């Protein structure tokens, strides 16, 4: 492809209007209601007709071949119109209800799944992992695959009390929704950065590096006459912020890097205000390729939620209703000192009342 034309910049994205299905254009801003037609199937109705959506899974990390398959299906059933969701599923947009079944069938033939709507587990929001990021304490795509293998029924069926949203992030930067998910899987380092004092003076600015540490664990020092930094290992909580600004302070440590499990966050304002995800399991080992400890832990929580929560109760709402003590009892997860907050506003998490279940 020749690119000899005049170089243009700052053109921004194309206007979306040309990507909108005619039925969508005609009902734009005037939709009346939607209906759920089954797992992965929605219809939205406005004064000028109904549009059908078929939601298909996606590993998000995809190849041209995957996207071509999407285009092919869209052309065959949807006049070429489709979209992606905020959780990286594909939504085919159909004018004709009769096209739903053949489309679903063909999607399945491609080894893809239809689902993720309503009271189901939708796609896992995730990050780069060992596939692309220098910071990662675990892989992301692989974790998503093994966890969703265990939970795919909950994607293709709507058998949960309510929506359940899972996120994976591969380090504490949390490029995703880990801090506000029903269940989150977070990769973490557990040992302080190793300072490479040979390269550090050239690669990093000392004041920026020192300032990067949330816990004041980094101090300037001098090694063989060169100014570098040293880490107070007692104070380091392995957050990796120093590594972000200074490449000479890597944290990766195959023996100790691993995964933590978090529960009970939510984003929507429905019923309760948004809630942060809370620590459930401080550490599970990195055990690729299938991380059995992680999949077991997540499945255990999902199944207890499925069996015990009330209709339209999110994971965090369920736990708040039964109490954290019962959550730890039911899941068999050990409550340790690591669960007790010790950061900035730790005091606000202490139980300052008599409200307790015995």
């Amino acid at each position, binding site marked *: 492809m020749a690119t000899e034309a005049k170089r243009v910049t700052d053109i921004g994205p194309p206007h979306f209007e040309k990507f909108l299905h005619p039925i969508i254009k005609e009902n734009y801003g005037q939709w009346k209601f939607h209906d759920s037609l089954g797992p992965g199937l929605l219809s939205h109705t406005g004064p000028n007709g109904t549009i059908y959506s078929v939601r298909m899974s996606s590993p998000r990390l995809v190849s041209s071949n995957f996207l071509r398959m999407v285009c092919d299906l869209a052309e065959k059933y949807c006049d070429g119109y489709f979209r992606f969701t905020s959780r990286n599923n594909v939504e085919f947009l159909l004018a004709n209800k009769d096209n739903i079944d053949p489309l679903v069938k063909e999607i399945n033939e491609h080894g893809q799944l239809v689902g993720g709507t309503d009271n189901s587990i939708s796609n896992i929001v995730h990050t780069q992992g060992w596939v692309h990021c220098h910071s990662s304490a675990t892989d992301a795509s692989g974790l998503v695959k093994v966890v969703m293998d265990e939970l795919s029924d909950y994607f293709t069926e709507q058998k949960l009390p309510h929506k359940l949203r899972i996120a994976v992030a591969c380090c*504490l930067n949390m490029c995703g929704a880990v801090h506000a998910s029903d269940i989150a899987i977070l990769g973490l380092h557990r040992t302080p950065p190793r300072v490479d004092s040979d390269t550090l003076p050239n690669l990093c600015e000392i004041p920026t590096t020192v300032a990067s540490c949330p816990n004041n664990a980094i101090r300037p020092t001098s090694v063989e006459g060169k100014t570098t930094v040293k880490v107070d290992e007692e104070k380091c909580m392995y957050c990796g912020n120093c590594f972000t600004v200074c490449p000479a302070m890597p944290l990766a440590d195959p023996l100790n*890097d691993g995964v933590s499990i978090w529960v009970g966050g939510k984003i929507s304002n429905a019923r309760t205000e948004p809630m942060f995800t809370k620590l459930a399991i401080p550490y599970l080992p990195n055990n690729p390729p299938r991380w059995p400890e992680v999949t077991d832990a997540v499945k255990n929580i999902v199944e207890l939620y499925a069996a015990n929560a009330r209709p339209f109760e999110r994971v965090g709402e369920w736990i708040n209703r039964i109490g954290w003590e019962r959550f730890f009892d039911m899941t068999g997860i050990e409550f340790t000192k690591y669960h007790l907050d010790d950061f900035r506003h730790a005091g606000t998490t202490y139980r300052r009342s008599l409200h307790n279940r015995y």
Partner: protein
Amino acid sequence: MADDLKTPLLDELEKGPWPSFVTDIKTLADKSEMAKDLLRQLEKSYEDKRGYWKHGGLVGVMGYGGGVIGRYSALPEEFPGVSHFHTVRVNQPSGWFYTSDALREIIDIWDEHGSGLYNMHGSTGDMVLLGTRTEELEPTFRALTEKGWDLGGSGSDLRTPSNCVGPARCENACFDTMEMAYKITHRYQDELHRPMFNYKYKIKMSGCPNDCTAAIARSDMALIGIWKDDIKVDQAEFAKYLDDGFNVQEFVVDKCPTGCIAVEGKQINIDNSNCVKCMHCINRMPHALSVGDEKGFAINLGAKAPIVEGALFASVIVPFMSIEDYKDEDSYEEFHDLLERIWEFWDEHGTSRERIGEFIERVSLATFLEGIGVEPSPKQVKAPRDNPYIFYEEYYAEEGEG
């Protein structure tokens, strides 16, 4: 499949019902050295339980300060295909709507200039074209712009705003998320492409408090749809829910956070003065209930991930704003003025790598509001202060003294 592609560990990820990225990438392994060496390096990561990427790297396209994430393999001799493996972030269209024609343009460009691998989409919302060499960056950019596509953000700049499907396919939309995302992205091209802020600035738009883009958790500026008047009720449709045996008491009335719903006979009565617009009743009975007529959005600022002061949800700064005509650039004046005052104040008083949420916490909400010229309101807080450490600014002086 290439002969030398031995990935016993990754092959384990081809099993199971969920679609496998390994299987998918393998379909490219014959054509693309990049795809193949990515799998080979990943296999080594799976063996050794660690990543093999070098830290960052300043690469990009001419005149842009963001949009490309530089990436180099730490083992370039062993995996030459990914010795460079830079990411190109491309602005997604509003609401992630595509036609197959449009997407095929991208696919063709990336098959030619890059790895043929993608994240559709990145967590911020961009199309993430995953992996190419430094020398391919400029050609990729040229090919993209020729087809009408442009780069997203990275570094200390405005990131590509993203938005929920909103008015395009949702009855709950209280404002035009689609058009507004488009307008903002276009107006602030400079801020997007040339990082000059203290740190990144993400804008996300959700058409209603369901917040389907997670704006309140993941954006420095969250615009979230809201209405001021009463929930609209179709009593006939409501009666049908009752008739169909839907447990309105347990699933709706009992779950309303302010207990402001009452059912009398086949009629639903909502005390709208006490409704906190949580959406739950509307979500449960979309045929009977819908958002009001006086619609707009709230502006919450400051969400972010935990690094460094702990994660933040965005907090209310302007409880309600509306735009007369979303298609009309002039209608946005009040919004743009505010946004620019926010950036100015943050720029002037914020420190490097200080997100706006941390900045507000540091200088205090009162100071921030004063700085950007917004009035204090009880809607900005859960409750007024409970500590008595008040800095008084007005006091009396002895006559003659002052």
